[in-house]
Every structure is written in C-alpha cells, then in structure tokens.
C-alpha cells in the first residue's frame, strides 16, 4: 500500500468522523440521520478493513468474516433503532 494512498484514506476517515460528530451536534435524530450515521460507520469500517488492515488482497473468506461482522453489527443496531423510532 503506497504512503500516498494511506494518507488519502486517513483524511477520508477524519472527515467522515467530523461528519458524524456534526450530525450528532445538529439537533433532533430522525430515521434518516440514524441511517446516515450508520452508513458513514459502514464506509469507515470498510476502509479500515480493506486498506489499514490490508485485507483487500486477502482471500474472500477472511475479508468476508470481518466485513460480515461489521455489516451484521450495524444491521442489528439499525434494527434496534428502527424499532425505537416506531
């Protein structure tokens, strides 16, 4: 992984974190804001797994387990929050 590419991923993760924080600061939570926050978390997690953990070039089984953990955790959280919004 080139140093420049890692730098780009780092900046993207920092910006995404500030977006999450800003959404949290900016008032009432709706279903849309909850989905936006979880989508940002999914993208951040994906970048960490693929580019920092360097699973991009590892067989699908390993990538699948870690990404499966990420997506399943976020999906369960989404379900719980969706039930709470009803």
């Amino acid at each position, binding site marked *: 992984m080139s140093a420049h590419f890692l730098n780009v991923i780092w900046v993207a993760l*920092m910006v995404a974190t*500030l977006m999450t924080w800003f959404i949290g600061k900016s008032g009432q939570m709706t279903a849309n804001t909850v989905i936006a926050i979880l989508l940002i*978390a999914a993208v951040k997690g994906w970048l960490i797994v693929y580019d920092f*953990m360097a699973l991009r*070039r590892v067989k699908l089984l390993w990538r699948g387990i870690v990404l499966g953990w990420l997506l399943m955790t976020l999906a369960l959280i989404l379900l719980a929050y969706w039930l709470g919004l009803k």
Partner: protein
Amino acid sequence: MTSHTAGHKLHEYPPGDLAIWVFILAELFAFFVLFSAYAFTRLKHLDLFNEMQRTLDSDAGMINTLLLITGSWCVARAVAAIKANHAVASARWLLATIGTGCGFLVVKYFEYGAKFSLGINLDTNLFYTFYIALTMFHAMHVLLGMTILGFVWKKAAQGGYSAHDHHGMETGASYWHMVDLVWIILFPLVYIMR
C-alpha cells in the same frame, strides 16, 4: 501462500500471525454481543438512554475517534515503511501510534474524571452501566494494543525488522486496527445516536 484470482494475487491468510487473528475474531464477537445488548436494552429504556446520552461529552468522543484513526494510519505507515526497508522511519511511525494511544487514554482519564466527580458510577443507572463497561472494556484493549506495539517498537528500534521479515510488526498492527474498528461503531452508538 497466495493464489491468483482475476489477475490479482490474493494472500491465503491475513497479515500477521494467525493466532492473533483468532484472538481478533474472538474480540470482535465479544463486542458484537455488547453492542447488540446496548442497542436492544436501549429499546426498553428509550427515554433514559436518550436523556443520559446528552450528558456525555461527544467532543471527547470525537477527539478520541480522530486519535484512534490517526494511530491506525501511523501503524499502517510503519508497516509500509518497513516493507520499503525504511527501518528508522518505521520505528518512528510506531512510536507515533503509541503516542496516539496515550492521547486516547488521557482524554478518557479527563472524561471519566468529570463523570466520577459528579458521583456517577456503574450503579447510577442502566445507561451509565453500559457506558462505563463498554468504554472501559475498550480502553483495556487500547492499553493492551499499546503494550504489544511497545514490544514491536523496541524490536524495530533495534533493527529487528526488515522488508523480508516484518511478520511480528504486522501482527501488532492487525490488533491495533481491530481496536480502531471497534471504536468506529462504539463512538456513534454510545455518543451520537439517539
């Protein structure tokens, strides 16, 4: 060991020692259970969780997220540097990673200090039971990650790694990335989402 798929060389196993990956998967499962428990317990105590979450310092949570992400970037740069045979730079990146871990714990110290000075503890209410248990459990992982990277840094500073031999560094790096990955979910879940 590698295989070829669609022109890309895919590695058989993830970077680092396979044993650390068994440990990482076990840790991820533990956090999956804890996050699910938080989310579904919140469902039964919506007003309490929403009210109590507003008492948290989301700025501290944000700063700590930036610190962990920066730490993950530093350790990724350390691995990239050693792969290019830049041993001195690699050791410096490792030291920077440990520095971000220290920063994380300092922020946590002040964050907990502010809460404990108000008499808040594990028994205050269900939200704070989860907040303290989840974040302290995670902070223990930060401490363990720093300890592992401390040993890796010591070996790196002594010239113990090279472009052809950096398996140990990748092992420590993989563990640190797991600590970061878990916080990526913990931060919005506990500090932001209401």
